[in-house]
């Protein structure tokens, strides 16, 4: 895998052309007259075309295991700007292009320029810039270049997110987002400054740094902070629920599916530089992953805003990815290559899988909002009857995110699990007990995810409509349905045919650790990928066989229709159905110590009580219960300090005098 300079016939030129096309896609729309959707449609076409180019380029790079690098003659005071591509970058490009194309096409139906003449051109433009910067980030081989793309991404995401800024909620979310992302960028300043101590801001080669030195620790800590903020690792996730809930759904899908993965990319990339790593790095990552996984899904269970709930699941899945990374690092520290292959392989595959099913779910949520006009789960219900496509596609996504076979989520979680179990079997040091804890933790995450998605799917799509809007919902058009179908098919494809995965995954793994190809462990041997196909087929055959026989039996006998069993109650209404909140209530009470649910009970008084209401919600614990009070306390302290600017001139002059005196006293 010698690095070679780039030529015009390289696959990377396809990627760059695609990314540029995507980045420029929104520009014509800015100049076309409002109230025509030509700009938007052209942009979607351009993004789709650009993505196709990009996917071809990325796959070609992966399969050929190419490593290409080149330099941009920059004139910033940091020397030339290196760029390049290797299989690891190419792997991260796959979800970028797939999801960007789907979301762009979806956007034409979801946020049509005809209905949003003021915001749609702007949104289309920033969406293109966002997708393009996401594609360029993995190509940077220089920290300065990386930071520039990184911030273009952050800013364009901010503008996309703030599209609907008339809503107070959107403004608040944008503020939290922008502060969090800037804090992350500043942490990266520190990280990259430390990495650039030698004077060059070019990426070091993989495996050339020593992680056991103190400087390595500092770099690791800063990277964890900076990239963790972007990825949304607990407790750095504060911006994520609000931002994902408030953005237009296709932007949420891109953010959740791809944008937060840039944090993972950064972390993976930085970790690749270290030849030797101390074991505690892996333990830190594993612990952070477990915390994100369990708390993320626990908070998700407590939500009753559809998109907020999905956002918490992003935190959960980031947790799973980080767990995989942790296993890989533990394996690297302990010299167990199978742990590296399985852990990192699981993590990377989950990056791709999560991008697919989470964007599918967000697009599905968008279809629900589009069709029923609300994302409040408890106001929905029975949507499956009028929106069968959306229901089926959402169900696919839900099953995939729960890691249920035979879909793609299961494959990547299986790899991570195998990493855990290999560690438990082979481990000698302190890592075995931690991994022994991680496996049940991940199992618990899986169980909770099932709980959560049964709740969502059941409350939104099944039963009876709980409101007039839900009763009058409608299926979206093909512009919105098509991308979802594609994503669902990809989910099923990876779930049923994972044998193809090593071809694109292994080059990325080998780029991460150049020693890995010589360790004698291959992904196809370490993981039962062919068995998964077989088992998937067995399962499908069983379902079909049992289903066919039973259905024959059912249709052979008389069938009747009746009301649902109501225990003899005379007047059941749709509002008496179990809601999402009631479904989750038992769980939320069990975890009340962490979730701290807020209940606003009704006040019932007198013989004939007035109409009253009951409400409960689970607040964003870190933001609302830690950060906000902390900020308020700081504000109070600061307003004391602000008394120093009291407006009295003679005391201002005293400040000068005192400064002078103190400096003189210090000098002499």
């Amino acid at each position, binding site marked *: 895998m010698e690095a070679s300079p780039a030529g015009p016939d390289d696959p990377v030129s396809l990627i760059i052309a695609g990314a540029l096309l995507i980045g420029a896609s929104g520009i014509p729309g800015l100049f076309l007259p409002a109230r025509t959707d030509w700009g938007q449609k052209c942009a979607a076409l351009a993004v789709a075309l650009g993505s196709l180019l990009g996917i071809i380029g990325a796959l070609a790079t992966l399969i050929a295991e190419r490593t290409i690098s080149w330099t941009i003659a920059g004139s910033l005071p940091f020397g030339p700007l290196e760029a390049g591509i290797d299989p690891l970058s190419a792997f991260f490009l796959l979800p970028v292009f797939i999801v960007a194309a789907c979301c762009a096409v979806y956007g034409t139906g979801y946020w049509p320029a005809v209905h949003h003449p003021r915001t749609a051109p702007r949104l289309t433009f920033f969406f293109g810039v966002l997708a393009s910067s996401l594609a360029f980030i993995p190509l940077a081989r220089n920290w300065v270049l990386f930071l520039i793309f990184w911030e273009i991404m952050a800013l364009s995401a901010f503008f996309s997110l703030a599209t609907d800024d008339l809503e107070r909620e959107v403004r608040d979310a944008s503020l939290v987002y922008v502060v969090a992302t800037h804090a992350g960028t500043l942490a990266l300043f520190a990280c990259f400054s430390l990495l650039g101590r030698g004077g060059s801001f070019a990426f070091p080669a993989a495996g050339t740094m020593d992680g056991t030195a103190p400087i390595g620790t500092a770099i690791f800590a800063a990277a964890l902070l900076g990239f963790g903020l972007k990825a949304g690792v607990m407790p750095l996730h504060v911006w994520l629920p609000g931002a994902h809930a408030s953005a237009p759904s296709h932007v949420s899908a891109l953010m959740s599916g791809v944008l937060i993965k840039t944090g993972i990319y950064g972390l993976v990339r930085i970790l690749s530089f270290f030849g030797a790593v101390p074991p505690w790095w892996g333990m830190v990552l594993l612990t952070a992953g477990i915390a994100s996984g369990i708390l993320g899904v626990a908070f998700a269970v407590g939500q009753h805003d559809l998109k907020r709930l999905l956002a918490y699941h992003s935190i959960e899945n980031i947790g799973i990815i980080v767990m995989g990374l942790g296993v890989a690092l533990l394996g690297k520290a302990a010299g167990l290559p199978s742990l590296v292959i399985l852990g990192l392989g699981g993590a990377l595959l989950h990056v791709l899988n999560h991008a697919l099913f989470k964007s599918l779910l967000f697009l599905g949520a968008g279809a629900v909002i589009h069709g029923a006009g609300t994302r409040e789960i408890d106001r929905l219900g029975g949507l499956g009857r009028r929106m069968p496509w959306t229901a089926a596609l959402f169900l696919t996504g839900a099953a995939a995110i729960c890691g249920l*076979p035979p879909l793609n989520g299961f494959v990547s979680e299986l790899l991570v*699990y195998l990493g855990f179990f290999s560690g438990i079997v082979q481990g000698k040091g302190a890592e075995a007990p931690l991994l022994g804890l991680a496996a049940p933790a991940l199992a618990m995450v899986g169980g909770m995810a099932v709980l959560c998605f049964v709740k969502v799917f059941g409350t939104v799509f099944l039963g009876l409509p709980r409101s007039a809007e839900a009763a009058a919902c409608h299926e979206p058009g093909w512009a919105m349905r098509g991308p979802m179908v594609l994503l669902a098919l990809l989910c099923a494809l990876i779930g049923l045919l994972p044998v193809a995965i090593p071809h694109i995954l292994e080059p990325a793994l080998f780029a991460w650790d150049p020693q890995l190809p010589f360790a004698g462990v291959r992904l196809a041997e370490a*993981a039962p990928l062919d068995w998964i196909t077989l088992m998937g087929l067995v399962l499908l055959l069983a379902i079909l066989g049992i289903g066919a026989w039973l259905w024959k039996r059912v249709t052979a006998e008389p069938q009747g229709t009746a009301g649902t069993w109501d*225990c003899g109650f005379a007047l059941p209404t749709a509002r008496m159905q*179990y809601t999402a909140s009631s479904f989750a209530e038992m769980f939320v009470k069990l975890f009340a110590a962490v979730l701290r649910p807020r209940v606003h009970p009704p006040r019932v008084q007198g013989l004939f009580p007035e109409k009253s209401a009951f409400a409960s919600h689970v607040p964003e614990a870190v933001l609302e219960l830690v950060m906000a009070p902390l900020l308020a306390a700081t504000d109070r302290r600061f307003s004391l300090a602000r008394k120093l600017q009291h407006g009295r001139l003679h005391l201002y002059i005293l400040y000068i005098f005192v400064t002078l005196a103190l400096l003189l006293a210090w000098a002499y």
Partner: protein
Amino acid sequence: MVDTVIHILITLLLPPLLLGVINRTKALFAGRTGPPLLQAYYDLAKLVRKGSVFSATTTSVFRAGPVVALAATFTASLLIPLGEHRPPLSFGGDMILFAYLFGLARFCTTAAALDTGSSFEGMGAAREATYACLAEPALFFSLAVLARLSGSLSLTPMLTGTAATSWLSSGASLLLLAGSLFIVLLAENCRVPFDDPNTHLELTMIHEVMVLDHSGPLFGAILYGAAMKLFVLGALFTDIALPYATGIPLADWVLFVIAMLMLAVGIGVVESVMARLRLTKIPQMLAASCILAAFSLLLVLR
């Protein structure tokens, strides 16, 4: 090949008998005669020949739920060794598929329950899903213990061969493990003290309340699926708890069937001598099983 056929036959035929044995045991304890041992077979035969009544609220999810649940349970049964015999399918990592197939089954049954729009069924589904979150870790702690003891990542080596020797080397840990798994077995199959299959008050039920609206062949599939789940998880338990093998294939099959019937008697005894727990106590019980399994893991990792 013969083993495979026997495996599938036992898996398909034995489960309803276990229910009969349990009920018979309970009846004995209560001083009744009780239903015939084969009552469950009669019920199933009757149900598949009955007509169905569907709630007007339901969609295809309601109809697909029992089918997928049964299929998933059946697929899982192909992965578990019965006694000392290798299962038809076995590979590294199959224990995770095994566990997740039950997750799939749970997803489908609870979704089907919610499809009716009934509060009762929603309640049951919520309970089922919530308790599973706590049972799942105990199962995985147990799997971790078995993986460590056997040094492998597949159910077959975990449960055959090494189990007997492991009892000698790390008996304490396996004892804890068996205890934990027994609790999981009872909880997952909705037996007393977690749930009472014979209860008649909707508000207190877990599993039964979810299937209130099912009828006819589909209800038959649910009952059969539940029996099969009991069988599969029971096999997991007996493989560990009663690891004796003669080395003669036929004798081993007989031994396994006897072990399963003993387990059914055991469950019947437990159901007879114990009262149902209050719903709020169930999480504590499940947490206790987690802790047992975690201790067991700690012992083998030591």
